Structure formats: structure tokens, C-alpha cells
């Protein structure tokens, strides 16, 4: 009779959390008031993302001088940024200035209630993103439409600020990229702080965007910026593992994340679980692969299948071998 652990983790806690999500939704809808888009939507001042803002001159545009009579502090916030670079014909500064992004402002000037203008903080995610996508829809932003962040109702202003950036680069709403991503991806960022095995993120040598494109990826999963698979993304830097090789180790070829946690781990080499356990999850052959290596194997026998680097003490070519005698990755 095979032994099995009693299934102590029932699903009740799981369904309780699902119900809590539903309850939150109900409470949120019931109690929300204000802070939403005005019930009377402003006249479509900013063209939807499918059409450019190419209003003819003087057609509903007030001019930035008019904007600055009330919003005088906004001009200084753009100083030195690319949006204010008038010599670049593509920028707002070279076109309708404030109204390039916020839409024609004459109706806003004429409105006592000061509506009829795109207020990014109060706009729907689609409206806010649509304004930015008029210009920023190519290059690294080509994958935004249909991306995970878009599907979760994030918008450009969730992460970026044109007028009040906190970061030195990329106009982020936090001081650093890592702090920004940690706002939602706390667990992944916490993994990069692991003491034993981590990517050099906290040393400042890598950032989340070293691997991911937060705007979405048109080529890869998990918003990975390079390649077309997890393994391709990893091997853009770890090119020695790319192969192909004579004797392949299957999980290596298909997905590095089968064995490694790319964000960080408490195990050597960022393994999802230490050796020999990671290997014994897939190897149950006779003799040493499926031997139970307990404390005596280390302290008394000092088995070289357990101490130090365990299985790769011998199977060091674990990512695949190009040697004719490398069937077991020992040569």
C-alpha cells in the first residue's frame, strides 16, 4: 500500500478568499462615490487611440499660455523632460503643448465646472492610455494592446508621471523601478532580496526590466522582453546553456523555470528546491538516484551524493553534455 500524506490542506480557505474577493467587489461598488469620471462626459476632446489628435489650428484649442494662467506650476515640471523638447517635432512641445495630451482646452476654459478636459487622474484606464498611445504605440510599447497589465486595467499613469516623476529615468512614480514593481509584485521583488541565491538586482546590476517589458511583449510569455520562450529569455545572457548539445537534459531544453526560480531562492543556484530533492522529484531509478539521504549520510558517512553540491558533484554537466560519453552528464 503506497504511503500518502493526508490531504490536510482543504480548499475551504481557498473558497473563502474567492468569496472575500466577491464581497470586496460588492462593497466597493456600493460605497464608491465621486472620484469617477464625470457623469457628463466631456466632449471628446482627445481622439480615441484609433485616430490621431490632428484638430485644425484654433479649433477648440486655447493655447498653452491660457493653460498656464491657472496651471502655472505645470510648466516647470516638464523642464528637461523629453515631452518639453520642442526641437523634436514628435513631442507635445512641438505641437499643441498641453493640449496635445489633455485635448483642446477652450471648452474647459469656458466651463464653470472646469470639465471638458482629459484629467488623467480621473479618466478611465482606456482614456488615459489612449492619449499616450497616440504617440507611444511602437517600439517597446507595441505589445501593450492585449497585454496583461492592460487587461488588469492598469494605465500609463499607474507607473509613469509626466509632471511629477520621482525617478531619475523613465519618469516613474516611484524612486526606482524595483520599488515601482514591488507595489504589486511584492513577492517577486522579495525573492530578489534572498540572501543565498539571487540575481544582482539589489546590487543595482539588474532591474525588473532587464528581463521583462512591463508594457507587454509581442514575442514572449510572462512579458519577457527577449526571445520567444522562457529558455530563450534566460539564454540571452546565459548563452553557454543555449546549445543545442549532443546529450540534452530535457527540462533544460524546455523551460529553465522547471528547476530554477529566476527571481531568487534560498537554495544554491536559485533552485526551486535544493539538491538532491529537486533531482529526486524526477529520478526514482534503482540504487543511488532514489536513495534516502538522511542526516547520517552527511554527518557520519559524508556521502558525496549529499554534501557540498550533491548530485552535481558528479553530474556537473547537468544542463546537457556535448561529450560522447556524456549520457549521464558526468563528462
Amino acid at each position: 500500500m503506497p504511503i500518502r500524506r493526508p490531504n490536510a490542506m482543504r480548499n475551504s480557505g481557498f473558497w473563502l478568499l474567492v468569496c472575500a474577493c466577491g464581497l470586496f467587489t460588492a462593497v466597493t461598488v456600493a460605497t464608491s462615490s465621486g472620484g469617477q469620471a464625470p457623469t457628463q462626459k466631456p466632449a471628446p476632446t482627445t481622439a480615441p487611440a484609433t485616430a490621431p489628435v490632428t484638430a485644425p489650428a484654433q479649433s477648440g484649442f486655447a493655447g498653452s499660455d491660457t493653460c498656464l494662467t491657472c496651471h502655472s506650476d505645470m510648466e516647470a515640471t516638464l523642464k528637461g523632460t523629453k515631452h518639453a523638447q520642442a526641437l523634436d517635432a514628435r513631442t507635445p512641445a512641438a505641437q499643441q503643448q498641453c493640449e496635445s495630451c489633455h485635448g483642446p482646452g477652450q471648452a474647459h476654459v469656458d466651463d464653470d465646472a472646469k470639465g471638458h478636459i482629459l484629467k488623467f487622474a480621473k479618466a478611465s484606464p482606456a482614456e488615459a492610455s489612449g492619449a499616450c498611445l497616440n504617440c507611444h504605440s511602437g517600439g517597446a510599447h507595441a505589445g501593450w494592446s492585449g497585454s496583461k497589465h492592460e487587461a488588469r486595467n492598469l494605465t500609463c499613469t499607474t507607473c509613469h508621471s509626466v509632471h511629477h516623476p520621482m525617478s531619475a529615468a523613465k519618469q516613474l512614480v516611484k524612486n526606482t523601478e524595483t520599488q515601482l514593481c514591488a507595489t504589486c509584485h511584492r513577492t517577486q521583488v522579495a525573492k530578489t532580496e534572498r540572501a543565498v541565491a539571487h540575481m544582482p538586482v539589489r546590487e543595482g546590476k539588474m532591474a525588473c526590466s532587464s528581463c521583462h517589458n512591463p508594457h507587454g511583449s509581442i514575442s514572449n510569455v510572462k512579458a519577457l522582453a527577449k526571445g520567444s520562450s522562457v529558455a530563450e529569455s534566460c539564454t540571452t545572457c546565459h548563452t553557454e546553456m543555449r546549445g543545442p548539445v549532443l546529450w540534452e537534459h530535457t527540462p533544460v531544453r524546455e523551460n529553465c523555470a522547471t528547476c530554477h526560480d529566476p527571481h531568487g531562492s534560498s537554495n544554491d543556484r536559485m533552485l526551486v528546491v535544493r539538491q538532491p530533492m529537486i533531482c529526486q522529484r524526477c529520478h526514482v531509478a534503482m540504487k543511488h538516484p532514489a536513495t534516502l539521504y538522511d542526516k547520517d549520510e552527511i554527518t557520519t558517512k559524508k556521502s558525496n551524493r549529499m554534501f557540498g553540491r550533491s548530485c552535481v558533484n558528479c553530474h556537473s554537466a547537468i544542463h546537457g553534455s556535448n561529450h560522447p560519453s556524456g549520457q549521464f552528464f558526468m563528462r
Partner: protein
Amino acid sequence: MRKATPTLILFLALATSAVVSGQQPAPAPAQPVAAAPVDDARSLFDPTARQFQIGGRLSSIEGDPARWQRYRDLRDGVLFTNARYEHEWAATGQKFQVAADNVGYRDGRYVGSLDRPGRFTVTGSWDGIPQFYSVDTKTPYTANGATLTLDDATQRSIQNKQATLSAYVPLAPQFDMIERRDTGLVTASIAATKQLQLTSTFRTQKHNGELPWGASFGFSNDVEVALPYTSRTNDFGVGAEWSNQRNMVRVAYDGSWFNNNDDTLVWDSPLQLDDTASLPGRGRMSMWPTNQANTFSIAGSSKLAARTQFTGFLSYGVWSNDSALQPYTINSQLPVLALPRATTDATANVFATNFGITSRPADDWRLTARLRTYNFDNQMPETSIPQFINYDTSIKTSSTGGPHVLSHARGTITADATWTGLQPVGLGVAFARNHGGYDHRIYSDTDENVFTLTADAATLPWGSIRGQAEFSDRTGSGLDEASLVQIGEQPKLRHYDIANRERRKFEGQLDLFPNDVWNVSVNAGVGKDEYGDSYFGLQESSFRVAGVAVDFARPNGLGAGASYNFERYAGFHVSRSAGSDAEFVDPARDWTTDSSEDVHYFSLYLTPPRLGRKTEARIGYDFSDARANYVYGIAPGSPLVPPNQLPEAYNTLQELRAELRHRLSGRLALTVSYAFEDFKVYDFAMDPSVVDGIVQPSSLVLGYVYRPYTTHSAVVGLLYHW
């Protein structure tokens, strides 16, 4: 050469920019932007366009300095860092920027860029990343390139049973085990026209040093060496993107060439000098082979009617490795087996596509459909290797008759919908069908259905709420248990990366910002994978995470924050210990491993308001504690010896950082920083009590261990800006 290389990269970047710039109309004579007036209101911690910091670092280290430094170079000495310079030509808006950090240290970083708005941007950088393994390492080996030799006399005396491995101890000097990765990168982006963007990238990466490496001759002669490693990877890419308000087309080529200068490791056997028919005097191993990858891709998007957008991507790549095959063994006393061919002749065609369509048929609806495929078509010829030489020691028959040519393919269809009609909540539902096809796996195909529900309220005036629930089921088909039997595995083993699996996952986050001063965030997540059809192998894995964070920021500059994060990971797998055919089929010999890891992470920061008019400070503290347990279980009445349970493995890291800056004049500030780190660790396999020397029973190792450390580090300097 080492110091010249960063200069070379920067020169290349500037030369490129000079060429590009030369193609543009000559700019008006440079009129430097007037120096910014002194601004007492500016924080001393805010970077400026022109500055540098010079000072000295002094540290006291108790314990393992290698673990402390890891990816950093924290040696005592003069420190020139945080250097920035910027020059802008007002007439053209052209901007030149350079930055340098940790100048002269292994982790030095140098960046330069030239940007002409609306015309081009050229960037060059050189970045060093060291990896400091250990100062505890010792080895009796002498390296000559990738050939590691031992003292012949000692080898002979051990061979003749006149000495033991301990004879190598006095011949093993201490050395620092370090490897490093130095990357030079040049990128150029040119706006050929308002609609056409040309990009080019060149990256060269040198990876060299030594790393711990297993170089074994069998259970009774296990060896760990410091593997010499020198490689270079060059990547080159070009692309062109044409776009207007509605359409975008991009074509690109990316090439990558990895060259391993130490692709063969030869090392002496510590127990044997002369080759015999059963014992080698040396071993020879193939290291990572030189390889290359060339990929062409085309992508495009088009904005259609009815707020619909189509995005498409496809790529075709060829990966290859044609390194010469080594002989089966370096042991001169063993038969010479005929190689199947002279070179590896390994090639793979890699084809990937990603097509998606997104539509907003109504203001409250967003729909997306996506088709993604990935095909790794291994073209390596079938290779007959009926026999090989095991450990350079003996002929062994291959259980498979040669390597399997592994190909795999994946296809994913995704459909998702988001509805925002219940303002301010956005509700989402998604379905994905993942299909996998495999060669030489226990399943020929897998299919997985994934349902995802999301709820996001992101525009509330007082905060935001997010939640996601995922349900997925994966099923394999074409089960081939015979392939497991062929390689001596249990036929009821299932490899967890493709085994039948049921996954449930839920994550949620609540953020509250009741005013401009306070911000509170709470997150939680739970998930479980169950492999119900796997008799052997991983049975289940699960995670639980929870966190809370509070941030406080007042207009007077006072800011503080604290966060706590808890993670728990667990896994359970079943195995069977067997030394004979009879034991192999005896279920009473089954055993289990229940693994769990708990991680607590706490972070605190304090940004006090100015201390007087001229002094500012920053304080930060991080605490991380990770504990792992592995509990073995055997069946009641099992013939196995009850296991002596493994001790808990743990590591704890505390970091305290404090920095103070005091304005001495309008341009000069005094900087004083202090960093305290305390690292505690116990790993039963890497502890000095276990690896207590380079000589172990049946093993000659490096002595690489996990050791704690406590460090105090101070940097005093001057920050000058103009």
C-alpha cells in the same frame, strides 16, 4: 586591456554618434547651457546633471568576505563614483551625458549617450559584475589554461598505497574564487524619417574566472575543482520599424555568437598517476560548446475599425553547435570506440508566432484573443552511441543506444474579456488552452485548460483592490511508460513539468491611500498544484504569501515606511529505495519527502526632514529570514532504516544603511554613509562542520562552504556638483 576596454566601448559609441551626427546638418556652435543656479531647496540626495563623489571606504569584516561582497567589489580604498556629466546644445537640443560609478573596481559601470531629439540616440556602456564565491577555497591543482595538474610524486605515492588524499593538504594554497561578467553595449536608434526608426545593437560579454565544478571519477574518487572559464558572447541586432497612426511594421535580425575558449577540461586523478584498464590517471570533459543563434523576426500591428487592434509577430531562428566531438575517453588503456561523426552537427530550427486581436466593441467591454505557437525543431542527426566510457574508467552500454533528438512544440489559444460596466470595478474572465507536443517524453502531448477570473478596482478615490483566481487542469496523452523502463526508472513515475496537474491559485491586494500622507497596502496569495496521477515524483506543491506595507510622507520631507512579507513554499514527493529487482517492485520501500520553506522579510526606511538647513539623512533597514525543512517519511513496517531527519537549514540577513549629507557650500556637500550587515547561515550540506577540509571520505574538494559574516562599512567623501 581591461581598463582600455570600457574606453574602447565608449569611444565606439561616440564614434558611431559622430558618424551619425556627421550625416546631419552641422549644428550651430555649441552654446553651453548656463550653469544652474545654486538651489538650497533641492535635496542633496537628488541627482544632478553634473556631479561626482570622491571619498574613501573602510570596512571591518568578521566572517566570510566573499559572501558579503558577492556581486559587489567592496574593497577598502579610494572611491570615485556617482559621477555624472551632461552637456546640452541649446540650438539643436542635442544632449551628451556620461556617468561613472565605482570607477576602478570590479563592479565599475560606465555609460555615455548622445541624444539628438527627433534624430538619433546613441548609447554606450560598460558594466562589470563580479561574483565572489569564496575565500575559503584551496586546491592542490595547478591550472594551465583548462588543464589542471597535480604533483606527480604525490599521485604516484597514493597510487602505490603509500599515502592518502591527505598528502594533498600541504600542497593546496588558499585562493579567492571569483568569476566576473563584463558587458559592453552600444545601441543606436535613428529616426530616419518621422515614421521610420532604425535600431542597431552590439553587445560583447566576457565571462571569465573560476567556479566550483564537479569533476568526478566515481563514488570513490569524487573531485571538485576550480573550473577555469573564459568565454565571450557577441550579440548583434538590427531592426527597422515603420509606423504611422494606424499601422506598424517591424523587421529585425538578431545574431548571437557564444565562444568558449575553455571548452575542454582535463584534470588529473588524485588517486592515480598512470592509466590502467580500470583506473584513469586523468579525466577529460566537454564544457559548454561554442554555439550561435541567428533569428529573423517580423512584427506588425494595425488599428482597425471599431476600436480593434491586431498585433502579429513571427520569428524564425537557427541555433547551431558544430563543435568537434571529443574521443570517448582520455584513458589510454581503454579501447578506442569509434565516434559517430567528427563534429556535433547539432542544429535546431526555432519558429515562433504570436497573433492577437484586441477590441473595445463598447466603452465597457474589452475583448482579446491570442494565438501563440513555439516550435523547437531539433535537426541533429540520429546518433548511434551503443557504448561509451563511464568516468574514463570502464565501457558501459547505453540504455538508449544514443542521444534522443529532443524537439518540442507549444501552442496556446487565449481569449479574455474585461467588463468595466460596474464602475469602478473591472471584472475579467479569461480562458487559455495550452497544448504541448514532445519527442521522447513520457507523454507525447499535454493539454491544459486555464480559467482566470480577475476583479480590479483601480480608480477608487481612497485606494485600489485587485484580485485574481486561476483554475487549471493539465492532462497528458500518449503515455509511454516503456520509455521509463528503458532507462531504469519506475514506470509509474511522472515528471512534474508535464504530468497531469490540477492548479488552483488566488492572489489579492488592497491599497489604501486615504490622503496624500498615508499609504497602506495588504496582499495575500495562496496556491496549490496537485499531481494526482503521479505515483512517484512530485505529488503536490503549494505556496502561501502575505504582506503588509505602510508608507508615510509629509510635505516637510519626513517620510517613513515599513513592510513585512511572509512566504511559505511546500512540496511533497514520493520515491522508492531499491538495490535489487525485487526491491524495485516492493511498495513497502516507498519513502517520502515533505519539504517546506518559510521566509520572513521586513523592511524599514526613514527619511527625516532636514536637520537644520544644510543636513539631510536617509536610513534603511532590511531583515530576511529563510528556514527550510525536509522531513522524510517511510511506511509503517517499512524495511527501510528509519531516517535520521535532516536539520533545519536557515539563513538570516540584516542590513542597516544610514547616509548623511551636509551642505558645505553651494556646490559641495560632505557625505558620510555607514552600512552594517549581519548574515547567519546554516546549511547541512555546505557547513564548515561538514566540509571541514579539502579532504573528505572519497572526495577531494575545494572547501567552499557557507559561512556567516558581520560587517561594518563606512564611506566618507565629498559630493561636488556644478
